[in-house]
């Protein structure tokens, strides 16, 4: 039986040395088909062997839809993803990736930008810089704060030559004040920051008087997705298999069931096709589907969209 396809299939086409313990991976479609589009500053999840999922910013120009380029710094004391990529992934290997997410808002009325990056945090601004230069909006400065030789030097050289990059070597001089780099709020200026949490804290402090719409922060570990403020956690009790499954606020019943290995057929995931219809026995479902009649709802629900109004819902599974 064919397993569901949940990721974009890519193969590692090239691996380059990015200096400072960094490898640059170029991922392409096996047939060199164009890849799903992405915004400047977007990131993707890499689904690695062993079930590890790690998020990396895309470094290439969004106009270049033939490849995804990610730069990975080997973190020996990290959670294992970067070590696996450095030590076990080779050219020709297959890696499933997510659709690209996120990216910077670069509205037309913002004519100048200042970006602050710490070390490997420069990666999202590489795709932003490429995009801004290509569309004829070259008024930006990228401040890279790093200790010693900057990372990804070969990708930074063009920005250095064009005068867009300022490298602040903290081995040679004191770390610059973030407030001095971003300046005072101006209506036509946009800001961005990516780096370690301490730097982001300083950046947040320095930009507290700026309108939020003009400030973008990219964290190494993405914050959790916002959930519906009215959503609440509950427990699914499966009457036949005697299982109790917690459902987090905002999580779908379907994802909770799939997460514990219960194979529920699903297709549209919007409450109309009926593939995931399940009978319920006790509780108070909130249905949200578009097709079940009141009579049918008294007995069944669709796990792709239904929720529970009470703490416990019993399903006939």
């Amino acid at each position: 039986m064919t397993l569901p396809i949940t990721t974009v299939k890519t193969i590692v086409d090239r691996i380059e040395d990015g200096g400072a313990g960094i490898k640059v991976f170029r991922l392409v479609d096996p047939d060199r088909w164009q890849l799903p589009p992405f915004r400047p500053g977007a990131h993707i999840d890499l689904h690695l062997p062993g079930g590890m999922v790690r998020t990396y910013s895309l470094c290439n120009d969004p106009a270049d839809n033939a490849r995804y380029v990610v730069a990975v710094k080997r973190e020996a004391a990290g959670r294992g993803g970067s070590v696996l990529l450095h030590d076990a992934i080779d050219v020709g290997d297959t890696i499933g990736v997510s659709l690209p997410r996120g990216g910077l808002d670069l509205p037309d009325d913002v004519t100048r930008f200042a970006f602050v990056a710490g070390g490997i945090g420069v990666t999202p601004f590489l795709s932003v810089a490429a995009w801004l230069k290509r569309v004829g909006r070259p008024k930006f400065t990228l401040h890279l704060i790093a200790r010693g030789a900057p990372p990804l030097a070969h990708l930074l050289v063009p920005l250095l030559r064009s005068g867009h990059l300022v490298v602040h070597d903290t081995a040679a001089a004191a770390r610059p004040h973030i407030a001095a780099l971003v300046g005072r709020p101006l209506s036509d200026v946009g800001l961005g920051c990516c780096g370690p949490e301490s730097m982001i804290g300083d950046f947040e402090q320095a930009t507290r008087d700026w309108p939020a719409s003009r400030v973008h922060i990219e964290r190494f570990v993405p914050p959790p997705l916002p959930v519906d403020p009215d959503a609440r956690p509950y427990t699914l009790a499966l009457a036949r298999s005697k299982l109790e499954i917690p459902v987090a606020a905002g999580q779908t019943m379907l994802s909770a069931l799939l997460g514990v290995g219960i194979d529920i057929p699903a297709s549209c995931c919007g409450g109309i096709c009926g593939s995931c219809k399940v009978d319920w026995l006790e509780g108070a479902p909130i249905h949200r589907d578009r097709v079940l009649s009141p009579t049918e709802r008294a007995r069944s629900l669709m796990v792709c969209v239904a929720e529970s109004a009470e703490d416990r819902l019993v399903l006939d599974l």
Partner: protein
Amino acid sequence: MLDTLDSKTATPVTLAWTGVVRHLHITPRAFLPMRAMAELQLIAGKGIDSDRYMIGREEGFYSSKPEEGRQVTLFEIETLLALKRDHNIDLAPEEHRRNVTVAGVPLTHLVGQKFWLGETLLEATRLSIPCRHIEEITGKAIFDPLINRSGLNCKILQGGTVRVGDAVRNAA
């Protein structure tokens, strides 16, 4: 089979229509952008050469749910116009992710019927259903507006080449 009934006389009425192929698209794998093609090769009983749902290839988002009647999919260009008119949503022909975009063809009336797509003969098996997957890919809220007009799934009875500009005709 009756196409529809005249409500006063209850006599059968056959729809009179002739349509045209406006766009052709394929993609080799799930999630990848659809690519515009000048022509497609349809293979009877299997699917479209190099498309993700060709039987034996099985690289589509729904390939884990095999379906003999999903060898080629069609979409009405009139639906794209309606999305703009009624919902102010711009959806391009490569974004709806069906293979063939037609004009002047009443797709929702054709389930169970045979019709000619250029030189190929198709049998309509069921209406397509919108899915959240397409919202994930396009980033556009199109699930609701596409309910009941999300295209048509077909089996290929007689294969051949389909080109942009080909006529679409009822085989009745």
